[in-house]
């Protein structure tokens, strides 16, 4: 399970809520939106990357989503949490992309496989293999099931939160998750005993990135 959305630590961030930042942004504070981006970019990246399964596509989707959020901040009504609103924009950007894009041709992996056979990389971890297998398996699911599983099973959101993000009833989220898991079970069952993987959390990754 993921940690809950990071709460700003008093040491390095003033106690300003996301909603306050959004209001400041609407009122013309040129730094407010970047703070929102900083707070949530890792989470949005994870959602987009897992939903789309392709870093380039995910980068485009997250960028579109943040630019769109920046522009339409004024339409944010405040009944939902800012994070939910951002998630919705990101998920919709991903779903749009998936719908627009025809099925990708299967890449010609023969060359790489050949290269990998004769030069195995020692630091290739089990973790990364599992991650790649999971990505590949998720791509086999219909988009709505994939989006539900990413939010609930991968990102650790409650069914209710996911329902808000996806703008569907909780029961719909549950049944999408159920159908998705049923499809993934035969594909991923062999990983059953390897699921005690150590996790590289977003926080750790961010630390590595930001120094």
């Amino acid at each position, binding site marked *: 399970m993921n940690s809950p959305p990071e709460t700003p630590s008093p040491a390095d961030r003033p106690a300003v809520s996301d909603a306050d930042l959004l209001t400041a942004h609407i009122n013309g504070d*040129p730094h407010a939106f970047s703070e929102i981006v900083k707070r949530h970019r890792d989470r949005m990246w994870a959602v987009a990357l897992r939903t789309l399964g392709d870093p380039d596509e995910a980068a485009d989707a997250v960028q579109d989503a943040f630019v769109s959020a920046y522009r339409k901040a004024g339409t944010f009504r405040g009944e939902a949490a800012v994070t939910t609103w951002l998630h919705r924009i990101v998920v919709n950007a991903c779903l749009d992309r998936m719908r627009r894009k025809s099925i990708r041709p299967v890449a010609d992996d023969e060359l790489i496989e050949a290269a990998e056979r004769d030069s195995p990389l020692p630091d290739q971890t089990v973790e990364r293999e599992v991650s790649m297998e999971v990505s590949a398996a998720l791509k086999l699911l219909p988009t709505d099931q994939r989006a539900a599983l990413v939010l609930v099973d991968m990102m650790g959101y409650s069914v209710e939160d996911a329902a808000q993000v996806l703008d569907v009833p909780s029961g719909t989220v549950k049944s999408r998750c159920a159908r998705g*898991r049923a499809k993934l079970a035969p594909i991923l069952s062999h990983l059953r005993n390897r699921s005690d993987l150590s996790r590289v959390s977003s926080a750790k990754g961010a630390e590595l990135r930001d120094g």
Partner: protein
Amino acid sequence: MTGDTHYDLDVLAELAEDLLDAGTARQVREHLAVCDPCGELLADLAAVREVLAATPTPAMPMGVALRIDKALAAELREAESYGARRGGVGLAETPDWDELMRDSPWERPAEAPEPARLGVVAEDGTIVPAGRRAARRRRWAMPAVAAAAAAAVVGTAVVSSGLLASGGSGPDLVFEADAPSPTREEARARAYALTDSGHNYSDQELRQPLEGFLAPAPIINGGSPDVDKVDTCVSKVATRSKLTTYAVDQGQYNGQEAIIVASWKDKASGRLRIDIVDPFNCKNLRKPMLGRW
């Protein structure tokens, strides 16, 4: 439905989500109590949740974060240029922003020289300006300092050191504009062609012949700490692969800063090993792959 009739994964998954009506749920539970295969399936379903939850969620790569900052900064400028409200994004806290933005149009000093433009010699000897790969480029124009450094390369010097003599198949790089001549020591010092295209490579692109990506970028010489770092990194890669490095490009891989190292695996057939390493620790960002020139 008990005894020899089993339930499929869909029904079991719905049971787990409490989506079955009470009567059906009771029947399935009774069946599960006596049926090992169905119990196994239920465990498989639980494993799916565990595997998904245990899959790491990576942090956003810095390249992507910078790209978003840039897009939002553009929004801010646009808003300002229309006299609209201010509002938007601060750039101050972005790591290495100054470094990366020094060549951006709004920060470039007015008197900065136009970077020397490179051309490619076509088969018939005419000089074709090197095309800029605008699409998906996440860094910007070549910094003036890099342009000066790039002046260290001339086709003949490179060819004389045997770098591009791959059976004459690769185009030679020459300058269109006047540029200071490089010293031959500089050109010879490195046994491979070093470029700084800033291009963001994807797996798909790396499967294409690399010539199209690496050859058009200006070759740069040594002298700066950055370039020395790259040299160090490249020699580490060469030690690991035990192959001859042919061309090195500084750019990105899936939005992360990366050095692309191409080494000959089989020069006759134009087959290369491609190492993608991060410029800070020289660690491979992905498995080495087989590429073509």
